[in-house]
């Protein structure tokens, strides 16, 4: 199958405003109401990337944040969305590429052997990325457990909470993989982690320069913790992003993956990249 950049047919053009509305409504309500350190404001963008291709995904991300700032009327409008348009564009583009590679396909009834291989490969890729980022961005500053760091109880507790969170995510991933017997879960996790790491790298400088490193949500606690741990602001924001962005993107990608499974294939196949995304043309 040859690579395609995606197409803007009428269905895609109609889908984009709905996708942007999904981003805005879920991004504002969920993240603000639950006060959890993830954003969930890219479900629509990923949906367009998956169903229509990389370029429509990119355009959706870009337009979503610009419209959010410049076009929407007052109660929904946010002046602080436009600076992150580049990040949203990157998410849409990458999700389009990954979907074309078949990473959003459901692979039901995988055999035990396939599941184990998928789990090992996904954990090796994610682990490799994690080891790389930790050695690259957390050296010297990642003082949660080191004797030179801040030894106060609050930070010991936060460090443990983060550790428990990461272990929880890994256990949850394995449980999902084996309970659902669907090797597709492993692909989605890898796609989400890659998108998350790249988003964190792009958005950290923007957040630090424009916003002083805060977003007004639960993630700010992590920035404060890393800064107290001895990082400068830029590094602290990056360290926060590298923790929360991959988790956020994995959750978001997984939501899209589940949605694709529940929509009837007739509906999906009408979108330009729908067939490739859910794997209708088996070789």
């Amino acid at each position, binding site marked *: 199958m040859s690579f395609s950049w995606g197409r803007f047919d*009428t269905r895609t053009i109609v889908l984009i405003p709905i996708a942007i509305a999904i981003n805005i409504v879920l991004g504002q309500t969920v993240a603000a109401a639950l006060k959890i350190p993830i954003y969930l404001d890219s479900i629509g963008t990923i949906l367009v990337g998956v169903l229509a291709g990389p370029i429509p995904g990119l355009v959706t991300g870009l337009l979503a944040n610009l419209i959010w700032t410049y076009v929407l009327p007052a109660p929904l409008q946010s002046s602080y969305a436009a600076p992150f348009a580049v990040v949203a564009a990157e998410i849409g583009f990458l999700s389009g590429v990954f979907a074309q590679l078949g990473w959003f396909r459901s692979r039901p009834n995988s055999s035990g052997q396939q599941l184990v291989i998928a789990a090992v490969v996904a954990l090796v890729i994610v682990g490799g990325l994690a080891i790389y980022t930790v050695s690259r961005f957390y050296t010297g500053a990642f003082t949660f457990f080191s004797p030179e760091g801040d030894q106060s109880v609050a930070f010991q507790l936060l460090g443990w909470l983060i550790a428990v969170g990461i272990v929880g995510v890994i256990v949850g991933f394995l449980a999902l993989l084996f309970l659902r017997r669907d090797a597709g879960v492993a692909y989605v996790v890898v796609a989400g982690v890659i998108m998350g790491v790249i988003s964190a790298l792009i958005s950290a400088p923007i957040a630090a320069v424009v*916003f002083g490193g805060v977003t007004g949500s639960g993630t700010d606690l992590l920035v404060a913790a890393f800064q107290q741990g001895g990082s400068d602001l830029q590094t602290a924001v990056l360290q926060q992003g590298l923790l929360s962005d991959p988790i956020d993107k994995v959750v978001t990608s997984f939501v899209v993956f589940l949605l694709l499974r*529940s929509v009837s294939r007739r509906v999906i196949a009408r979108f330009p990249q729908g067939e490739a995304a859910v794997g209708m043309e088996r070789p």
Partner: protein
Amino acid sequence: MSRLVPATPTAFHRLNPLTKVTLATTGSVGAVIVGGYLGPLTILGVMIALAAQAGVLRALLRASLFLTLPLAISVVLVSVFTRAGTTVLFQVGPFDATMEGVDFAGQTLVRLLAISMSIGLFVMTTEPRAFVFDLERRGVPPRAAFVAVATIEAVPTLIERAGVIGESQRARGLDTEGSLRARLRGLIPIVAPLILGSLTDVEERSLALESRAFSRPGRRHLLWTMPDSSPERVLRWALVLVLVLAGIARITGRI
């Protein structure tokens, strides 16, 4: 077409949307580029004066304070208490409040206020549809314009739909109040039908559009134009020039 022509109570409202958006972008990007206190405060002053002229000052102040408040609380907590610095003002537990942190929080706050006031002034004095159609007349692809206008309609529709789904799920015994866990679990039966329903709607809407020559190639001829004048054109280019010069000055380290 009458609903496209915005009410024009003041001279500022009557400016071409492109002029107002250039002003908003110069103000917000400029506040980031210049930094410090003086630049953002000057921009804030200009925006307050313009807002007073346009008669939206109170509403604008309320909206930008409301938007900036959660960020402001975070900025103060994060930078005052955890930013490294030598001049310690006072201590709370393990956290030192430093002079450097207070300074940084102050700079961030004036910058954020300058950004939200600049863009807020534009949004409050401009009819979004007029802005989008003006852009289309200037050569923005009609499909991008469609996306922008359709989003304005889609957001309230989606919220309304979420409300309807929420109510009907509650009628079937869904628990949407109470503990965080209950609310999280209650989210799925609302969000899933919401998105699935919207996806199936796409087909119907695109057929409706196709039957109205949506994918016909070529330019649309708009019956409606937004007034534009040469002083405004000069003003726009001047603003862009100021922004570019500020950027160059910043990069070369002059400010």
